[in-house]
């Protein structure tokens, strides 16, 4: 059963309705590709989304799905996961849905460590409402609602997640299919809440927002792939590395005297390092991969353990005793 599932089993019969060329297609394709590999029965998988282009996602997955209201997917998913820890619950959200109107639910789900796998499709724009800037849009962005350029300093979703003490924080890119697949697998395997920021190109309203990370000639110089226990090396000749000067990062060229062992070695378990990496801004490269992981127990496990413990300690609830058990008196 679960073992024999293929990509096709996860494709629903609904016509996919994103703009041609939208990065959402690539993400959908990868999710449909890797899910069967996880060996979870299809009926145990649920996709919950808010509102936005990205939030159409559940319709295209032949699993259980709930396309809810703007920003609330993490809250709805919380109620589901807490009462049904047997389910694999994925949340699909956008930079507006997840960080603007739904920002609070997101950070609370992360701090609580609800065992949700949260995919935040970050295209740095509101797609569905046709192109207003979002909380991840850069300062100065000219959009329909900011004709003279935005004056909002943007969120860095990775930093927000780390600030909320998420237990698994990573970043992927829509078109880096293999890496994205790995990240999905890591999220699936993580016992607890997982936050995955996925850079996603909106070719209609914000085309090329991540072109440095996706354009062949550029990306090797701009992308820094994080691997636990490995030194931070990048560049098309893999000749650039990142070193800490005190607690400040700097780029060094490996040829020029600096050697691999001077380099910062990635440690997924260190929140401070995660935060340093999250704050990499040009000229530093953009890290992708897992920034941080911790293994504290998920909320739903603890909550259900309390229910079990209560049953052990007080016996499975007996309604008669509950009603008749207090200070009663009898009139006869």
């Amino acid at each position, binding site marked *: 059963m679960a073992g024999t599932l293929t990509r096709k089993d996860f494709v629903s019969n609904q016509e996919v309705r994103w703009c041609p060329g939208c990065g959402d297609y690539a993400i959908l394709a990868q999710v449909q590709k890797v899910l069967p590999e996880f060996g979870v029965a299809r009926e145990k998988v649920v996709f919950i989304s808010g509102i936005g282009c990205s939030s159409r996602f559940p319709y295209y997955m032949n699993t259980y799905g*709930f396309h809810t209201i703007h920003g609330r997917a993490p*809250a709805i998913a919380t109620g589901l996961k807490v009462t049904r820890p047997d389910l694999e619950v994925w949340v699909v959200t956008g930079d507006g849905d997840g960080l603007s109107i739904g920002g609070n639910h997101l950070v609370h789900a992360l701090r609580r460590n609800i065992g949700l796998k949260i995919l935040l499709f970050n295209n740095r724009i509101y797609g569905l409402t046709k192109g207003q800037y979002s909380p991840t849009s850069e300062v100065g962005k000219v959009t329909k609602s900011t004709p003279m350029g935005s004056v909002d300093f943007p969120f860095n979703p990775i930093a927000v997640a780390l600030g909320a003490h998420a237990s698994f924080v990573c970043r992927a890119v829509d078109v880096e299919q293999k890496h994205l697949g790995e990240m999905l697998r890591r999220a699936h395997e993580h016992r607890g809440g997982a936050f995955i920021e996925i850079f996603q190109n909106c070719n209609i309203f914000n085309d090329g927002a991540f072109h440095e990370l996706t354009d062949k000639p550029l990306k090797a110089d701009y992308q820094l792939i994080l691997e636990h226990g490995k030194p931070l090396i990048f560049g098309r000749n893999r000749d650039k590395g990142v070193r800490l000067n005190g607690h400040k990062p700097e780029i060094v060229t490996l040829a020029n005297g600096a050697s691999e062992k001077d380099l910062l070695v990635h440690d997924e378990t260190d929140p401070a390092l995660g935060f340093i990496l999250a704050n990499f801004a040009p000229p530093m490269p953009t890290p992708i991969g897992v920034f941080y992981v911790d293994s504290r127990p998920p909320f739903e496990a603890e909550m259900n353990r309390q*229910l079990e413990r209560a049953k052990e300690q007080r016996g499975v609830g007996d309604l008669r005793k509950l009603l008749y058990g207090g200070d009663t008196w009898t009139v006869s």
Partner: protein
Amino acid sequence: MALPGGSAGQEEGARPRAPEAPQQPQRKPVIQRSQVVVRFAGDSGDGMQLAGMQLTAESALAGNDLATLPDFPAEIRAPAGTLAGVSGFQLNFSSNEVFTPGDEPNVLVAMNPAALKANIDDLSTGAIVIVDKEAFTESNLKRAGYESNPLTDHSLDRFQVFEVEVGRLTTLALRELGLGNREVQRCRNMFVLGLVSWLYHRPLEPTLSWLNRRFEKSAELREANLRAVRAGYNFGEATEIFASSYQVPPARIEPGVYRNITGNSAVALGLVAAAVSAGRPLFLGSYPITPASDILHDLAAYKNFGVYTFQAEDEIAGVNAAIGAAFGGAIGVTTTSGPGMDLKAEAVGLAVKVELPLVIVDVQRAGPSTGMPTKPEQADLLMALYGRHGEAPLPVLAAATPADCFECAYEAVRLAVKYMTPVIVLSDSNLANGAEPWRLPELERLAPIKVEFRTDPEGYQPYLRDEQTLGRPWVIPGTPGLEHRIGGLSSEHLTGNVSYSPTNNELMVRIRARKIAGIARELAPTTVFGDPEGGDLVILAWGSTFGAVREAVKQARAAGRKVSHVHLRYLNPLPADLGAVLRRFAKVMVAELNLGQLLKLVRAEYLIDAFGCNKVQGRPFKVSELVARIERALK
């Protein structure tokens, strides 16, 4: 108190109960009374709620019918001794059926000047006032805003004032225990409880056994409290201060097992009972808010019943989490008060659209905006009905008494899962904190709640409806072969696929409306208290006004008025026969604690020239106000 349409305590069928022997021999003259209203008042820290609750327990054991009303100070703890910090508890016990906590106390126990000042105007001439004389210090008088000492300036001359040195007497009684002064002073409430118990021949057993339980772990405090309560009792008997005591014979009460219950506790129990009947876990997604928080607190203690309580980051998350839980097959519930209701509107609309069961409990408080959070009002009715964008109808129920909160919560779950719809239950801060004796239901008699998740893929469609109820099938994730997607967009009949078809949209909007309207089919015919065939005036009411209206109607009828009372539990849909019933009366008056909300519905629905009897003071109706209003209406 008789529930609307219920049977507890109704005069027919209730049998007289053997009076309990008084606790200890009483030697002073004893006067018979049929009803007494006692109010304890003191600083928040004075333990007045506890004293009141125990007098209630004693009165229940004495076989009286009763009703209570706690009156908490405004949200912030005010400095000791100020008016803002006064906490009160009122108990009405009687040898007759009791419907309200009473308009005017016969006895006021005032632990300090502020407590006296805040309450004295509610008393009528001749009432008993027991004060802790020691608390009437210069500084306390000033804090309460007294210019001169009321104990000496003759301003209390029209009352029977008893000045008791409560502090000193309590200290004396506990002398040997070697407690600190703070602990000793904390027992003052038990001293006055003992005193009042003596005065009204209350049996002390419930209090004594409660103290034994409560201080199980501290022999010292247990002993102190036991001594204090006995000292108060004995003080009444021993001293010359009271010339006589009073006896209130037991009421004729329907046989059964009783307990005291507040509305909030009853909601919690009703929800648990319903979840047990349904065989499903209960999930409460809630955010603390006065006066609803205690439902969360109560439910948090029922984890061994499979009850999940999730204190969410806000009310929006609370209701959405409950929707998520319902999607997964749990009984999803959210509890709140007015401001929280505002925030839940969008999610409730989603639940209406996707047709998932959900129970929303709104413990109303005085508004608008933050208003008076601890005070009651009934001004959320129209919001419950219409407070969402689009056409999003749902059933609305209102509880009439604290115990009725059990029934309403239970019924809400039943309707929610039967019709696959969110259901709103309206309570208010009167019910929430007020207590009454509750005749416990026989479990076998609870309406069955059937939850059958569909598992058969054959012919399954997400919006294929039950022909009777028009409810759609509840299919939960984890069911192989029934994978499907739901959502807030307009969706196609049967398949539930996203659809922008104009006629399909109208079809779905109308089916949902019909589904809710159809619930009227299963409502019992309207019960009229008074003249079912019609008369001069009927008072239509809902919610916590039940007791006051019923009592007022009784009094007016006793005075020969042809006035009746109809009390609604179902505000949406309204009972099918309601229009016909109302039309039998020459006049229809709608009594509610708002500016006329049910009134609007009734006028629109039945085109009856009903008029309102309204109050928005953060206080329940007084019986006397209603009686006067009835007289005016009949002129």
